[in-house]
């Protein structure tokens, strides 16, 4: 359809169809050829009609803005994990846990999802090297118990990652065990305990090797 216009620029007046039928009479001035792309904000020839107002419109407007605000606060709004700090700071210990990449803040029904999507969430603790020993193949829904310094810590929830076990079997070991803080109000209470037993080892997202390294 754009060909109807295109032909006018070149070979003035010579076209494959009878121009008179379309309405261009003999000797009529043709519009000048277009030499540049159309402007980004072409001038408005006439004003747009006003938006329909009314109670319905107002209510839906409020709903829309409220929805937007609400969804930002839900756990489904995935924020990137806190960036790695180059220097550990003392204040890091007392800051509220920032969003962490490998924690999932809500409880999906894992029965309805592909197994490969399960994310392991584990509470970080000192002397965690012992937990990095590769585990034997375990059944899917088995809950793992805490290995170190359990007496001072409270019980946590853990979700195992299928991916890890498969990889260990295949000896690829690419998936890294991300040990992160569970984001629960618990953290506040255990502050006192942590500082009492602080032996200088770092914890929190900073110390994690977040890369494709083998787990030893």
């Amino acid at each position, binding site marked *: 359809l754009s060909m109807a*216009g295109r032909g006018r620029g070149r070979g003035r007046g010579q076209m494959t*169809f009878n121009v008179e039928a379309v309405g*261009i009479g003999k000797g009529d001035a043709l519009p000048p050829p277009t030499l540049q792309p159309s402007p980004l904000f072409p001038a408005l020839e006439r004003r747009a009609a006003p938006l329909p107002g009314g109670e319905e*419109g107002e*209510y839906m407007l409020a709903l829309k803005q409220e929805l937007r605000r609400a*969804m930002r606060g839900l756990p489904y709004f995935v924020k*990137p994990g806190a960036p790695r700090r180059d220097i550990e700071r003392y204040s890091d210990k007392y800051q509220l846990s920032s969003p962490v990449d490998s924690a999932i803040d809500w409880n999906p029904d894992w029965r*309805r999802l592909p197994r490969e*999507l399960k994310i392991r969430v584990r509470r970080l603790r000192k002397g965690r090297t012992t937990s990095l020993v590769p585990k034997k193949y375990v059944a899917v829904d088995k809950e793992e118990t805490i290995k170190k310094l359990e007496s001072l810590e*409270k019980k946590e929830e853990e979700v195992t990652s299928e991916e890890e076990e498969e990889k260990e079997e295949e000896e690829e070991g690419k998936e890294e065990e991300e040990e992160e803080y569970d984001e629960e109000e618990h953290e506040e209470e255990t502050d006192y305990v942590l500082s009492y037993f602080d032996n200088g080892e770092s914890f929190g997202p900073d110390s994690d090797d977040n890369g494709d390294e083998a787990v030893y």
Partner: protein
Amino acid sequence: MTQAELRLCSLLLQEHFGEIVEKVGNSLLRTGPRPLRLLVGDTGLLPDQVKKALCVLIQHNLVRYEVQPRGSVEYEARSERILRILRYPRYIYTAKTLYGDPGELLVEELLLHGHLPMSSAVARVADRLTETMEDGKTMDYTEVSSTFVRLADTHFIQRCPTVPESLQSPKAPPPPAPALAIDEKEMYVVPRLSLVGKGKRRHSCNEEEEGEHKAKRQKQEGGRSETPPDDGIYWQVNLERFHQHFRDQALVSAVASRMDQTSSEVVRTMLRMSEVTTASGASHTQPLSSNEIFRSLPAGYNIGKQVLDQYLALLADDPLEFVGKSGDSGGGTYTVKVTRGPGASWAPPSPFPHPSLILLLLHRFGSRCARIFRLLLRKKHLEQKQVEDFAMIPAKEAKDMLYRMLSENLVSLQEIPKTPDHAPSRTFYLYTVNVMAAARMLLHRCYKSVANLMERRQHEMQENKRLLDKSQRVEAILASMQATGAEEAQLHEVEEMLTGPERQQLETLKRNVNKIDASENQVDETIFVLESFIESTTKRP
């Protein structure tokens, strides 16, 4: 998918779920279904981030998964479902008009969370309603439950496909992903639950500590102890049913504007009676006898039986064919014609695209252009000269307008050769409107418009970020000061932190953002009309 749709989906995902989910969604939309590994590679995100994003997308029915024969799981984005995010306010508002506040909040919770078990939804809504009630009052679960049941009965919400009972031998490894399925009959069956309880009000001041203590206690008791009685049964909003409702609404208002209030009530009654028996996408409702209709009229309407019959006859005779007569049993049976084919005659009312197209021309190109367009719709094919004559517009102007419309794909040229050799001098060239093409073109424009609006809105917010942050801080300070009982003078001093021009700027920003948001809602209405039309027309055999 067109670029415009892709861009809009991208923006919607980013605005409601963040950039990580947007990246994953984008990759799936642009490159098609793929397994997890390829997604990780393509997006450059961490594997855990991608997994989280996929969980969110699946939870909200925006992505589906399928186990491939080789054992890997492929994920596929559902673009048309992503676009529906734009319509959430309309769904929620409709639920409010039909079922009041409990209905509104139930639909809202289901949309916010993708899918929920009934027990969870009822509890959340009861809590929210309790918050808004006077001190000391609480919302009982039974009222919310009964609204839930009504929503299910009228098919506005439905059960999600469930995990099948596993009949495999225990030795065989479980499949990489469950194959969810649901029987048509089961979809609206509400489980027999006795949900007893009242909404809980959050205590204002000591809320944080109390919540913590409670959580701690729960953890010590072993976490969420009992599984809810409806474990595994999830509910989601049935968007198609809402769409059917919108179509019905448009039909009823079209009848009201063409005839009168009473005839529109008759049509509304007929539609209500066939709500759940009309399959979505059907072109007619089931036949209803005039006796049945008479019995189902709303209480306030005391029109006699003969009067009803007269109305029905009038509706059936109307050239716009709202209602068709399908038989004579029971005093005459009638159906409502819900969709119409492309061969429809002159300017049918919404939900058909013609008014939208005409309005577009009217506002962009002027009333004369719109006149030519309506002429072509009516007469189907016209030569250049005929257009000038019938529309009573001078040749030069008519030419110009026709070419503009041609370049916008709103009209097209049809060649009718007089001689077998198709010689140009002996061929008729007729202008005609291809409604389908014009509708698609307009729809594409709509997607672009909404995407532009969203970007502009985000830009405006970004530009004024500093000012917005400042105003939030000032409000927070004011609130805390008022809580601790500060004096008038002190409050005034804090208010002064925001200068006059700054307040002005904030006012302007708010006005602009509201205008843009309202426009987005408005464009979505047009999108609905066009999509319905295109869908119904392409479905016809």
